């Protein structure tokens, strides 16, 4: 996509776009849509902060292709375990400190930042970091969605190193983690996060722009903005759906009414943040019974007991009445929702991808329908 297509602001250099306040608003919507299970409040807070800060600065979005392949880029994002970001948003110095810790550790200057995950809070955080640091934000990320573990990335599949990881916690305490194995890094970072107060601002996966281009998921920031443009548009719900399905190759699995919600609905043995729950819905047109299995994310959709979508597919919810993103918090018994499945980045359907983020990685003893397909 070229910058001229989307934004009124002219490109400052080839492949680089200055984001507008409207872009931020759309990105907020897109970031919420792609991660409907997560309370969007912290994303709203960040969007508001960015929009007010844009009065005195600019956010530059850059295509990974237009960076020098040797440029050092780093992922920024929040890792949480025990404190709601909406209850205590970062005070403002955390990410800059993390970036400078990475620069010191590697004796190199960071040339651009990218999102740890292209949805929810981590989809928007790097824009504030870019605004504060003056660094461009790369239009790519290592998940192409949100996964609960920092080891669940396409960079991990591509064997790009996760370390060093710079962290700064709620009280301003700092830590640096060096663990070559991303799974170990996840364990260490998660336990440190609890000790640091419940969340940490982090910078990790320092790599070259060339590596990010090769192993990251590209165009994902633009995708969030595009999704937001569609959902925020003042047009019929049908039109929004048509455009959304075209953009995301999405499938509407069902339009159904919530019948039952259940917490701690199945046994789990893994160290995943938060516990599982389930939701059962009835499609009133077809009579189909839809079952959603949730643990941080919607992991599995069964239609009359048959698998309709499974992680790493992105499963999200839309309001058929307003054509807007639905937050799981607002869904109660009686709510009618559209269940939408979006294919994840292709890398997730490879054998190592499914190993890392397929149903079995979430303790669901099923093979993804695309395994060996």
């Amino acid at each position: 996509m070229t910058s001229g297509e989307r934004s009124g602001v002219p490109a400052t250099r080839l492949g680089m776009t200055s984001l507008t306040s409207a872009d931020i608003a759309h990105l907020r919507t897109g970031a919420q849509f792609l991660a409907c299970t997560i309370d969007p409040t912290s994303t709203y807070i960040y969007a508001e902060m960015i929009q007010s800060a844009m009065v005195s600065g600019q956010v530059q979005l850059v295509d990974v292709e237009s960076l020098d392949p040797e440029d050092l880029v780093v992922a920024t994002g929040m890792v949480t375990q025990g404190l709601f970001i909406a209850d205590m948003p970062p005070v403002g110095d955390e990410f800059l400190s993390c970036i400078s810790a990475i620069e010191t550790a590697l004796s190199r200057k960071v040339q651009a930042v990218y999102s740890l995950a292209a949805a929810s809070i981590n989809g928007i955080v790097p824009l504030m970091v870019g605004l504060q640091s003056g660094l461009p934000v790369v239009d790519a990320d290592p998940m192409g969605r949100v996964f609960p573990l920092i080891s669940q990335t396409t960079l991990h599949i591509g064997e790009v190193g996760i370390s060093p990881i710079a962290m700064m916690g709620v009280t301003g305490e700092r830590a640096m983690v060096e663990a070559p194995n991303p799974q170990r890094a996840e364990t260490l970072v998660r336990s440190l996060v609890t000790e640091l107060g419940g969340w940490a601002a982090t910078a990790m996966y320092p790599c070259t722009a060339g590596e990010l281009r090769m192993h990251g998921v590209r165009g994902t920031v633009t995708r969030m903005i595009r999704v937001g443009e569609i959902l925020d548009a003042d047009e019929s719900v049908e039109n929004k759906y048509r455009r959304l399905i075209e953009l995301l190759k999405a499938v509407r699995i069902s339009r159904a009414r919530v019948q039952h919600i259940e917490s701690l609905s199945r046994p789990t043995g893994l160290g995943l943040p938060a516990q599982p729950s389930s939701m059962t819905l009835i499609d009133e047109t077809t009579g189909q019974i839809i079952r959603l299995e949730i643990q941080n994310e919607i992991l599995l959709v069964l239609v009359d007991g048959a698998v309709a979508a499974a992680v790493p597919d992105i499963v999200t919810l839309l309001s058929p009445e307003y054509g807007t993103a639905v937050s799981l918090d607002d869904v109660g018994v009686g709510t009618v929702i559209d269940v939408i499945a979006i294919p994840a980045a292709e890398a997730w359907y490879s054998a190592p991808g499914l190993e890392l983020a397929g149903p079995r990685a979430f303790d669901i003893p099923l093979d993804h329908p695309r395994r060996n397909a």
Partner: protein
Amino acid sequence: MTALEGQKILHSSGSRAGSLAEAVDQTLAQLHSLLHNDPLRPVTEITADVGPLLQTRSPAEVVAIRVSPRPPADAFHSTSLPSNAASLVRRAIHVRGGHDVRGRELAPLGLEDFVAELPSIVATGIRNISITGVGSIAATAHEEAVADALLSQDSDMRITLSHGYFSNAFRDRDYTAILNSALSATGDELATLLERSCRRYFPSAALCYAKNDGGSGPLSLLSTTPVHGLFAEPAMRILGCATLTGVPDGEVILGEDQGVSVGLTRHGIPVASSLIRRGHGASLASNAAVHAPYTRNHLLAPDAVSVIADLRQSIGAPLPFGLKPTISIRDDVALVGCAAALLTGWIDRLESVVNEADLRRAQHLAEEDAQSMTVNLGAAPGNTRIIESSASSVAYSYPGIVRVRVRAAGTRAVADSEVK
């Protein structure tokens, strides 16, 4: 004013008076002459919707105290409040402290520094204080310690602690606490006024104010939690329509001059959510009836009973979306709702559980607490029931953290005739 008996409107009238006190007095006098002579129809309860008054009265200024591990490092990282609340904050003070979702202390409370600031707070002359602490929904100690320090300096302070208003977001609780604090003087004044007039005409009636969730609370609480009565009107309309049509469970579609909206009732009480959202900004952390614009895409549940109420003052034109009204009312149906409102109490809390049995236990405890809360509001112990109870896991919080939410409703021992 509307007097209601069962599902029937006994009397309805408006009044014109010079002052609020006069208007209240006139209304109650009218009611007294209408009903008092009939000993078979005692007035047991009077419920007032004070929302419109609270909204029009100018709120007081507030000192906002915020407890968190670190203050914002720059202007952009301080969360912004909706303009109606931001303009009320004369002074904002940061105190070090706060807790995580499990109630673990994030930083020791910076009480000494705060105590040093106390004289300057008192010097502002402002008596309305809001205190919001990070993690106060999991641990209330820091908010309470700051409040104690303030009261020891000046016992006349009207303090709102944010943990009484459940939200995972600091800014929601902050906003709610500030607004509540700003309204508490007005609430106090209205409560006194209503109390005085009602006592004159109906000395034995229980006095209540209508709440945002479609329930009622004793008038005595209007001065401490006025925010819960700020937006009661939509809830009361939904309840009013459901009461008049005798539909306890179903959808209530309100056709009004300003547009069509839809709400839900369950067990005869409006379905509520814990926040009143305002776009992408801070939400008001008060239970409120779910009430949304009606669109042509609205899907009716096939087996649900719907009330379609034509509440428009202009008669003749059909309702939009081809809706056929099941009832047409010109009277203020919100007042019918007020008269029918039950006492409601709710529990919203985070619990740490290890297994399903634990979860059930936590939920059961919350149900008992909600019922005793309703009894404390004035319901007869045998007349309470749970109208909503859920325990849900919170994504990306901490293993074992669940949010337990319970609503209970109750009636007084005798409730034949209710009046507003």
